[in-house]
């Protein structure tokens, strides 16, 4: 039986790990490669690097981080942040990423996702959907860390991205990100039930019960969290044990 994936995410800026609360007030806390090795040893199912300031600053530092990580961690690595061109994707994959996560560029030019999937295969194209509740049970896609509304309905958008060749959807609730109040379950469930591809739930994890709820109630195939792991509130192994105890199929011990 396929196992539920637990994916620790490292927000990286200038080659260093950071984690923001609602994308501001950043705290610098460590070397991403050391963190990645720790997560690897603890049994993380995949790793995710998000180059959070990639839209604004020189991003060559990320290639070195990816290359050093790929030398030591033999597990899938997804890298997102500022992925705008086929050449960006090629460079990330050559550095050692296995998947790239496309966010703003998909909204600006949806056909980019189609081109990327054709060129590199759906298996390495993740589309990141950042959504906020706009009332009435509707969710809208936002870009630029939740600052810019797009007018796109999140469910219809996720479906379109899957049709265009996205191999999975990384869904982040911008209402919940950084709040530790748990995933937005209605959002997660609406998207997970609407698309044929796997959905990674993200944004708002504060407890291990939140991880369980994302899969059990939100129907996500995988859960992503940053701060609970990064600040050591919970270890990866604890998270997986709690999820297994709740009856979810988890990979443990190998």
């Amino acid at each position: 039986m396929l196992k539920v994936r637990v994916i620790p995410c490292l927000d990286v800026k200038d080659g260093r790990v950071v984690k923001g609360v609602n994308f501001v007030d950043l705290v610098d806390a460590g070397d991403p490669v050391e963190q990645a090795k720790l997560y690897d040893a603890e049994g993380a199912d995949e790793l995710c690097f998000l180059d959070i300031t990639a839209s604004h600053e020189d991003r060559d530092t990320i290639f070195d981080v990816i290359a050093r990580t790929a030398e030591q961690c033999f597990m899938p690595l997804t890298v997102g942040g500022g992925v705008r061109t086929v050449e960006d994707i090629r460079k990330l994959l050559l550095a050692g990423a296995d998947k790239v996560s496309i966010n703003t560029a998909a909204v600006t030019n949806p056909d980019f996702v189609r081109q990327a999937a054709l060129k590199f295969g759906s298996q390495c194209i993740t589309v990141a959907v950042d959504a906020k509740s706009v009332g009435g049970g509707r969710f809208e896609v936002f870009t630029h860390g939740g600052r810019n509304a797009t007018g796109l309905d999140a469910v219809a958008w996720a479906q379109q991205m899957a049709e265009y060749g996205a191999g999975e959807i990384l869904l982040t609730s911008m209402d919940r990100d950084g709040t530790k109040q748990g995933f937005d379950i209605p959002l997660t469930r609406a998207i997970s039930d609407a698309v044929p591809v796997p959905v990674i739930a993200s944004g708002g994890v504060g407890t291990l019960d939140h991880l369980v709820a994302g899969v059990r109630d939100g129907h996500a195939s995988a859960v992503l969290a940053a701060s609970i792991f990064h600040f050591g509130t919970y270890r990866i192994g604890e998270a997986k044990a709690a999820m297994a105890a709740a009856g979810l199929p988890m990979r443990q011990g190998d």
Partner: protein
Amino acid sequence: MQTIAIIDYGSGNLRSAAQAFERSARESGASADIQVTDDLSVIARADRIVLPGVGAFADCRAGVDRVEGLRDTLEERVIRGAVPFLGICVGMQLMARAGFEHLTTEGFSWVDGEVHRIEPAAEDDGRPRKVPHMGWNPLAIGGVDHPVLAGLRDGDHAYFVHSYAMRLDSADQKLATADYGGEICAAVGRDNMVGTQFHPEKSQATGLRLIANFIGWTP
């Protein structure tokens, strides 16, 4: 020192495959020169050949065909020269007679099977199962005793990401399976050839073990 050629035909992340081979060789004490290459002279002299592959079957086949002489060199070395061969993911699928992804594409006809889209049964609660099959799934090896799987146990997890899979004509060439709303062919083998649908280079200790076994394999 042996040379291992990881064939570069424009498909996917070869760096992670090369690094996994380097690590496995180092840890198992094997002296190996790992070459990521599309140079036919290197491939023709290699002691082992690895064909990775991600994306679509037809694209990968076209990628092989774009490297002039590669298909013939592979046939010469793997079939007539009996050089140990490992196909990974679509590299394994190319060992089939044909793939039916978007259109019908001929494979190498090294194993007796075809590649079709997976159609997993629904989840227990009736929700459709997601495609691609993506993530960690335990291997069922059963009674298969193959040197490349030595030390791997039933239930060891491997990392999969694919929407198409091999359907073998008979169980003779089947080395391992996984369950995803039905049986998934996880590994195939015949003579000097093995193929894995999963990614050993992404499967942590289990994958490194399989790679070390392949490096030390004398078919």
